[in-house]
């Protein structure tokens, strides 16, 4: 592995962004070209990633080099430097692999959109920022990427900016992420104050040797890791900052697949896995695990009662991200990252199939108006089924392996967390198959004018679906066979410290339990939804509460948004701005006006009046000198 390889890997999407961003005007007549430029840029990165991955096989040493010195001061230096180890290459493959397929898919999906070149420019910029995030060898580089992906997320959620709901969702995502990023920044400051550097290796070595400034006494690392986790909560949509992710579905569906399912939202998991040494020393993993498992459960319950396909998938993403945090929280870093990988494939796949459905249904998202789509869209149906089986933990499909590893590790940490996780697994299987049965099976409830041109998507869309379906089904088996002795664990062993809690109990027993729970969820959904139309949903209070997402948005609105708005309007604007600040400015002006108004009377314009004052002055002076001089 050489520095040149990494630079090419990183720069290719940036070049794509620049071409599409700067010369998009000339590409407009030829949108296919613009789409392929974007896709090829990511393909180059993918090839470089595979080379980097291959060179780490067989115990290759991690690559850690500085490109150049970025900021230097008397006592500190920040570098543009890259670290490529097992964790990085895994992330690289996910980002560029899933990213490439989604780029290709977008060529078909975005066909005819007025902002076609802008779309690909943003998407390439996103890949570039995400690559910086995972390639950096220090927290500052990570933060640059972290903010970069946040910006692209904002731009792409609000991509259809003439739609108010889309721009609102973009702003919501951006503002909620600011809260998390603030925590990330404070965490970085704490680390810098303690270690005097932000380089991963230097920090981890010093932390392990207990050789750092105890800025906050013994709790320095606890505070630092918890603040970093606040950043992860924002970016990865955990309680209490998850509210932006469901709204982010206003963006184009491939964006939801790439940014809000496969890559960006997993940045928090990556960050914690990267900082595993610190979390192990600080023992803050338990907080991470509890937030994770509660989010997983909470979001899964909301998903039970939604009718918008993309929103179900969004809550499902929040829920699965919770699983990942549960994994890294209980010290099973490899398992958490493993789930990140499998989830990226099957959730990306499901979002793309949802996009395929939308494409055919003239952007209809309400599954009550679907039903029986299996006959018209067989490929979409089968690929979605693969994704749903994978997430539901159907035996030997991807989700089964990764989720089971996490649950197994959770058992070693706390049986209560395990049980909540298991219930969530049941709910996951249930809501996913509710979605499948209502959308693809039963009678068609499609409105006639839509039904007439219901069709399978073009090859540029279904080929990526088919390709994604393969890893969604098999990657768990390939990488995860053998549980904690699997290939994936061996590959990433060099990166992660030993777990706190040795996983205990019979692995096979856990697998059987997980499978039974998953199958039970599927069966339950089949009983309930395979025949019935969902207009007969229960109408009791609990259902209403869940269908309205626990009124969390309304509560936040009442507790946070409205007070800030009112405070800004009445206190800050009316009183402080209009009263105090404008008062001072206008007051100074009017005092000067009064003085000037008085003085201007002296300027009568009558020359003789001036002479009178002159003569009077002379007379007074003369009199003074005559009588007192």
């Amino acid at each position, binding site marked *: 592995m050489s520095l040149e390889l990494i630079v090419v890997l990183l720069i290719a999407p940036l070049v794509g962004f620049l071409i599409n961003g700067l010369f998009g005007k000339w590409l407009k007549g030829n949108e296919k070209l613009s789409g392929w430029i974007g896709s090829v840029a990511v393909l180059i990165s993918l090839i470089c990633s595979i080379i980097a991955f291959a060179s780490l096989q067989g115990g290759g040493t991690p690559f850690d080099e500085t490109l150049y010195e970025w900021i230097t001061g008397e006592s500190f230096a920040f570098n543009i430097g890259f670290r490529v180890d097992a964790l990085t290459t895994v992330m690289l493959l996910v980002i560029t692999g899933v990213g490439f397929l989604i780029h290709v898919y977008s060529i078909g999906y975005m066909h005819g959109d007025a902002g076609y070149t802008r779309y690909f420019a943003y998407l390439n910029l996103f890949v570039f920022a995400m690559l910086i995030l995972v390639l950096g060898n220090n927290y500052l580089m990570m933060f640059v990427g972290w903010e970069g992906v946040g910006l692209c997320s904002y731009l792409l959620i609000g991509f259809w900016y003439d739609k108010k709901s889309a721009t609102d969702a973009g702003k919501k995502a951006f503002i909620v992420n600011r809260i998390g990023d603030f925590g990330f920044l404070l965490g970085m400051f704490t680390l810098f104050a303690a270690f005097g550097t932000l380089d991963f290796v230097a920090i981890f070595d010093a932390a392990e040797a207990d050789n750092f400034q105890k800025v906050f006494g013994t709790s320095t690392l606890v505070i630092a890791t918890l603040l970093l986790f606040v950043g992860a909560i924002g970016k990865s949509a955990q309680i209490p900052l998850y509210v932006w992710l469901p709204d982010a579905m206003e963006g184009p569906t491939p964006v939801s697949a790439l940014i809000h399912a496969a890559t960006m939202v997993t940045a928090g998991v990556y960050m914690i896995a990267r900082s595993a040494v610190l979390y192990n020393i600080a023992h803050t993993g338990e907080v991470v695990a509890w937030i994770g498992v509660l989010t997983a459960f909470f979001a899964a319950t909301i998903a039970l009662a939604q009718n918008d396909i993309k929103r179900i998938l969004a809550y499902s993403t929040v829920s699965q991200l919770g699983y990942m945090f549960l994994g890294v929280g209980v010290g099973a870093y490899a398992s958490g990252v493993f789930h990140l990988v499998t989830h990226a494939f099957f959730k990306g796949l499901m979002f793309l199939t949802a996009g395929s459905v939308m494409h055919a249904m003239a952007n209809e998202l309400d599954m009550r108006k679907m039903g029986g789509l299996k006959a018209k869209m067989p490929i979409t149906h089968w690929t979605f089924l693969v994704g749903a089986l994978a997430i539901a933990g159907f035996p030997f499909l991807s989700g089964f392996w990764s989720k089971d590893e996490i649950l197994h590790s959770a058992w070693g940490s706390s049986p209560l967390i395990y049980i909540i996780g298991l219930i969530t697994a049941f709910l996951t299987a249930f809501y996913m198959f509710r979605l499948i049965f209502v959308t693809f099976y039963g009678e068609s409830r499609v409105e006639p004018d839509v039904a007439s041109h219901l069709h399978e998507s073009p090859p540029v869309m279904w080929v990526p679906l088919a390709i994604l379906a393969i890893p969604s089904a098999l990657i768990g088996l390939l990488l995860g066979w053998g549980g904690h002795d699997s290939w994936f664990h061996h590959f990433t062993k060099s990166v992660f410290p030993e777990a706190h809690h040795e996983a205990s109990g019979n692995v096979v027993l856990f697998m059987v339990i997980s499978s039974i729970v998953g199958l039970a969820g599927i069966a339950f959904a089949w009983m309930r939804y395979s025949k019935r139309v969902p207009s007969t949903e229960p109408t009791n209070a609990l259902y209403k509460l869940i269908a309205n997402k626990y009124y969390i948005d309304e509560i936040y609105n009442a507790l946070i948004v409205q007070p800030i708005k009112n405070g800004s309007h009445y206190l800050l604007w009316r009183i402080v701005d209009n009263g105090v600040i404008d008062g001072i400015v206008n007051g100074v002006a009017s005092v000067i006006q009064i003085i000037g108004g008085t*003085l*201007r*009377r*002296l*300027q*009568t*314009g*009558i*020359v*003789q009046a001036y*002479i*009178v004052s002159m*003569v009077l002055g002379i007379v007074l002076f003369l009199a003074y000198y005559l009588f007192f001089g």
Partner: protein
Amino acid sequence: MELQYYLILSALLFTTGVIGVLVRRNAIIIFMCIELMLNAANLAFVAISRSLGEATGQVFVFFVMAVAAAEVAIGLAIIVSVFKHRETINVDEVNSLKG
């Protein structure tokens, strides 16, 4: 010959000129009053020069007369152009520099 008589006359002439400048409204009259003041000063110069037996004061008078001539030329030109613009030379009505 008493110096003081000349100085008293000069002071009277000067005062007359000042009062004329202050109270009259016609620009030409004001102008003439200024001339009166200048000549009052000239008278005082000459008288003191004579009394001291020196020529300096008389040289000053020539300067004053030269300046007064130039001033008359410019001053009358201004008055003529003001009259052309305003059709008046009443200084109370020429007050567009009012603040």
